[in-house]
């Protein structure tokens, strides 16, 4: 039993010399993956969950339309609104204009392949979404993607 007896009371210190390296590694990972937000989203965005997700093939072809309740309900009211780029719009009639501007950013060959990603809050009613879809059809931007998050439970 003498082997287990306490011989020296000072515990060996764990070397923390490699800690900065580990932290830096994590830091670089996050620096590389970070995308600084271009637009400031003024609407609530709790995306619905789904299982059958597919990746968007070409990111450069995607434009976003946000739908949801405004975060700041005192200025914009409590009803769901549509946001394009940085501004909340009052009427969905402005969508075709927005689409043609987004189209103009693409090269000629890619113009008809424009994809619209709809980021819609899960509490929104279908009514406003239908209006948006109708405008998208009007603007002939028919490729639509409903942004959802992965549901791991189902």
């Amino acid at each position, binding site marked *: 039993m003498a082997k287990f007896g306490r011989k020296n009371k000072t515990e060996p210190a764990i070397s*923390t*010399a490699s*800690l*900065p390296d580990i*932290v*830096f590694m*994590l*830091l670089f990972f*996050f*620096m590389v*993956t*970070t*995308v*600084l*937000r271009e637009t400031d989203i003024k609407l609530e965005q709790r*995306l*619905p*969950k*789904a*299982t*059958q*997700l*597919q*990746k*968007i093939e070409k*990111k450069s072809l*995607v434009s976003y339309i946000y739908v949801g309740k405004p975060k700041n309900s005192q200025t914009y009211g409590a009803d769901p609104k549509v946001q394009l780029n940085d501004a909340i719009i009052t009427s969905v009639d402005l969508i075709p204009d927005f689409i043609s501007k987004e189209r103009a950013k693409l090269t000629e060959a890619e113009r008809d392949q424009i*994809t619209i*990603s709809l980021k*819609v*809050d*899960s*509490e*929104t*009613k*279908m*009514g406003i*979404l*239908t209006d948006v*879809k109708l405008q*998208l*059809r*009007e603007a*002939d931007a*028919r*490729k*639509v*993607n*409903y*942004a*959802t*998050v*992965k549901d791991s439970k189902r």
Partner: protein
Amino acid sequence: MAIDKNKTPEVNAGSMADIAFLLLIFFLVTTTIASDKGLPVLLPPKKEKDALDQIKLKDRDVFKVLVNSKNQLLVEDEPLSVKELRRKAKEFISNNGKNPELSTSPDKAVISVKTDRGTKYSIYIYVLDELKAAYNELRAEQMGIGIEEYLNYDKKKASKDLQEKYEAAKKAFPIQISEAEPTNVGG
């Protein structure tokens, strides 16, 4: 205490970890991992004023899904729980003419989804997801792979054999989900 002049003084690296942590936390907080996944759909072309009526479909080839403003489902004129939708849809698509009330063949089968203006978006996505799942499961079955494997299919990485199978499955079970103009009860 004579200082050895031949040695360069060491920089104290003890606070390096702290600095790195500070930066790390900053990036952790500001990062939003981009969610570029979703359910793709193709909208119908815009309405022409004097367009002819669409080709009439046989009643048995149309699988009607209605969602009302209280988020309840009516499938083929019968109330149904959302959990059963996937099974029912699969039955309908893969019928191949056996049951006279279900579709004649998968490429003729059309699923019609009609919502109300008052339907919650998350329910709509749930329904759409279940219907897509029905198609995807049938495709995966035909390809002889698991559903997870099917969803993670990447054209660039797949082998030639798998690519052919994928295209064949896509052809055998074309996704035909049509969306009717919504009713306006709970708008």
